[in-house]
């Protein structure tokens, strides 16, 4: 009986059991359900959208019985195909690194979600009551880890995903894969610098690196969001460009280069290729989520001020979470739209754009922002 009381006590608010369990639920929901789920749908959406833009039909046939929904179940068919296809490993490949590379491509894409706030904090024990903002004593953040280093965590972990592409290219023992791997590593390294510089001016404006605090500083009205302002709009543009380059998508798909080299994963098949494929789309989902957090007000529902004072806490949390999902979904759709609107760069143009155009502009942006903050104080 005493033992039971102890166990039960450790699952009360603020105790290790409660903290651990709530973290586990958040991890399973965001990293294993939401991210891969939305990414899977995006794999279908990208093909369908491109076909509509090019006056084709695209994948519209997959169905489960009578359930068709414009062929949205195509991603399930894809997953099934990945699983039953032959897992081919080239004879001269480096076996260990060949197996490690897809893991290194997929894992960082999932882990970066840890810092993203995906809804207003829950008020434990007062779920059905109206809890005005900031008055809750037992708040459960809808954010897996509230780190002081915040967005630097995102950069640190996402900078590891370059190993996936590079090692895949090297370990395949294939010249085209090797070339793709080299291109991937140089491209991702170059644009990481611009990405960091672009977000640096946002750190200056917010005065914090913690995404939860950034969302709290942004208000309900769209003109209170991070993107509103000349230096921040510029950093949004720079960050978006660099983020698309980091995910190695058109117009920056040099490492894959479909007309010429077919990329660092050319020797991969089956589920291992699926890991690269899904990893790329998960990167899109969570980089969109990060941009929504920094620039587009996070989970704030636009035009509905003071909602927390009117509806029960649980409803408020669900509404804000829904607003966050809609924003992330629209933003990923915007990224797909860019892919099918712009022609691709040449390899040297890509390097020139990264180092000679975007980087000086982003550094100037940081200096101007810093000067402006200093002046306005």
């Amino acid at each position: 009986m005493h033992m039971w009381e102890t166990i039960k006590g450790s699952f009360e608010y603020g105790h290790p059991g409660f903290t651990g369990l709530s973290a586990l639920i958040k991890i399973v929901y965001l990293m294993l359900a939401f991210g891969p789920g939305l990414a899977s749908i995006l794999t279908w959406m990208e093909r369908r959208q491109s076909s509509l833009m090019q006056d084709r039909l695209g994948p519209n046939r997959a169905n489960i019985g009578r359930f068709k929904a414009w062929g949205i179940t195509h991603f399930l068919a894809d997953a099934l195909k990945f699983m039953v296809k032959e897992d081919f490993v080239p004879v001269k490949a480096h076996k260990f690194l060949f197996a490690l590379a897809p893991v290194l491509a997929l894992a960082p894409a999932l882990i970066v979600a840890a810092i993203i706030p995906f809804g207003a904090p829950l008020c434990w024990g007062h779920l059905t009551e109206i809890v005005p903002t900031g008055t809750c004593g037992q708040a459960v953040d809808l954010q897996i880890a509230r780190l002081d280093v915040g967005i630097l965590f995102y950069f640190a972990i996402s900078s590891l995903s370059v190993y996936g592409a590079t090692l895949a290219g090297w370990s395949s023992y294939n010249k085209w894969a090797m070339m793709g791997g080299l291109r991937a590593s140089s491209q991702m390294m170059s644009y990481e610098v611009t990405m960091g510089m672009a977000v640096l001016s946002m750190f200056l404006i917010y005065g914090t690196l913690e995404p939860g605090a950034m969302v709290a500083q942004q208000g309900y009205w769209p003109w209170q969001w991070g993107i509103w302002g000349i230096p921040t709009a510029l950093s949004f543009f720079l960050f978006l460009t660099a983020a698309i380059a980091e995910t190695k998508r058109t117009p920056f798909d040099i490492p894959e280069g479909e007309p010429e080299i077919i990329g660092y994963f050319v020797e991969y098949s089956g589920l291992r290729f699926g890991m690269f494929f899904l990893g790329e789309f998960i990167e899109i989902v969570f980089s969109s989520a990060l941009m929504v957090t920094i620039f587009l007000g996070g989970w704030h529902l636009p035009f509905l001020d003071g909602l927390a004072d009117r509806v029960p806490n649980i409803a408020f949390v669900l509404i804000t979470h829904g607003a966050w999902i809609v924003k992330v979904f629209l933003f990923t759709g915007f990224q797909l739209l860019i892919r099918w609107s712009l022609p691709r760069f040449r390899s040297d143009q890509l390097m020139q754009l990264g180092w000679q155009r975007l980087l000086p502009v982003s550094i100037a942006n940081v200096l101007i922002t810093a000067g402006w903050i200093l002046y306005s104080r």
Partner: protein
Amino acid sequence: MHQLHTQTVGLPATITFAILAGLTVIGALFTITRRNPVVAVISLVGTFFALAGVYASLSAHFLAILQILVYAGAIMVLFIFVVMILNRDEITRVAARGMVRRGLGVVAAGYVVWLLASVVANSSATPLLGGPLSEPGADFGTVASVGASLFTDFMFPFEAVSLLLLVAVVGGLVVSRSEKQEDDAEETARRRAQVATEIRPESMVGGPTDATANHEAAHH
């Protein structure tokens, strides 16, 4: 139970440290024993990652994340890039050449290890290690506190290191540029000479079709 917690760091922390320290050492051993350079670099990445974990367990979160961001995420990527471009074969097990220099290196490394070991063994004599472990403050290791100490107490060393890095960057740029510019100048001169002697641009005024027409006209 309370006695234990005040005297030592506690069992979970000890287990975490043992795992992370073990991974650090294993990664370092793999780095120097693997014959394949790419595997060696990846082992070093693993070492840095585990070391970042040790920093994080010491409440130095900012340092931990910078360790991953700078070393694992940027410097080692450059290493891999260079190793892949050079594409060296697996190194041979024992090379007779350079044994004296390597021997001296081993002696030097051994001296450093001996120094460190003697400091740890004499921990009571070292003021920093000998005293009781106190709980770090709430702002210990945060971005704000590290930044503040870098830009106030340690301003000079910080700027000196920045200058050193800048010198290295400029040096790298100069070394890579001077050669390339000479090559480019030579290449341009060679091309101009070739154009002047072989192609004779004045004969191509009307474009290639005109040239062939002239050629055919000359034959008839």
